[in-house]
């Protein structure tokens, strides 16, 4: 796969895996309204995944579409960040994951909406509006849980502690990123970090939460080195396509 296709693939994989995770909440959320909110976010992510994976397939030019990429690759070929594949845990852990990721996605897509490559810019412009809402919703929940009861605070602290080590990977740059920027499709993610830090810190302060202790970055997702969780997620997600090769649905 060429680097631009890889770039689209990473964006698609991020959205796909997070959408898959969030959809696990459907029917099981703490309140009916919250169930609807989480499903809306999941639907946005699945929609983004569809756009980016179809684009990746098109750029690759080997006849693979979004479905082929989503349902017929193994762990080592998945390029999502480690954050999105983390298990839902309790509601606080889900919110912590969403909070870190949505603020990253919001900054990313704001910038990407203005890139030269209109294919990336168009998807990003639409997604930017979606993820801006996700970031607000997740932030509001961080504040409620952080500044709620003793129990909710403890859970929010634990949730953030779980996901914090995966934050650095969001902003890490490599050759594919550089090539994507060069080609007018990509965004300098390392330059987003400052704004992300200040947005995240502002919410944490309002939530009366301390920023989690620094942790050595856990990375590898972009080059297919994942956590153990992803294989299980894929074995479930890909079951039908694996069990009935060649069938259409």
């Amino acid at each position: 796969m060429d680097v631009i296709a890889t770039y689209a693939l990473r964006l698609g994989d991020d959205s796909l895996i997070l959408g898959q995770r969030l959809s696990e909440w459907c029917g099981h959320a703490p309140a009916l309204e919250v169930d609807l909110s989480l499903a809306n976010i999941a639907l946005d992510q699945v929609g983004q995944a569809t756009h980016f994976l179809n684009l990746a397939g098109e750029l690759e030019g080997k006849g693979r579409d979004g479905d082929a990429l989503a349902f017929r690759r193994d762990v080592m070929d998945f390029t999502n960040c480690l954050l999105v594949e983390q298990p839902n845990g309790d509601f606080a852990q889900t919110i912590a994951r969403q909070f870190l990721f949505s603020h990253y996605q919001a900054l990313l897509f704001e910038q990407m909406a203005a890139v030269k490559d209109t294919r990336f810019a168009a998807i990003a412009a639409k997604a930017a509006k979606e993820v801006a809402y996700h970031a607000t919703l997740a932030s509001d929940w961080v504040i409620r849980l952080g500044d709620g009861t003793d129990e909710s605070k403890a859970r929010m602290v634990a949730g953030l502690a779980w996901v914090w080590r995966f934050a650095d990977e969001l902003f890490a740059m490599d050759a594919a990123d550089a090539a994507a920027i060069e080609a007018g499709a990509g965004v300098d993610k390392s330059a987003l970090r400052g704004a992300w830090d200040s947005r995240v810190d502002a919410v944490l302060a309002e939530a009366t939460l301390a920023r989690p202790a620094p942790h050595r970055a856990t990375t590898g997702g972009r080059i297919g080195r994942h956590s153990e969780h992803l294989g299980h997620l894929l074995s479930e997600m890909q079951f039908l396509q694996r069990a009935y090769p060649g069938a259409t649905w």
Partner: protein
Amino acid sequence: MSDPSKEWPLWEVFVRGKGGLSHRHAGSVHAVDAKMALEHARDTYTRRMEGVSLWVLPSAQIVASDPGDAGPLFEPAEDKVYRHPTFYKIPDGITHI
């Protein structure tokens, strides 16, 4: 047993379908405060492009007329037919009136 004081209060949701229209009652959501009520209203009542603007207000804040008073409240308007333009007979040839 459920403790009513611990249940998230009920809010009424009003949606403006498109610019120029007034807000119309869509339904209700439970939420702890106005911000959450707006979020829940958005996630519940605008999933199919139903709106461009939302109002929420606590259900408990709505003051309604008593159905028992419907007679004195609304029936006196019934014979004020002169308030309606069709009450007035104007010859066919007269226009712009």
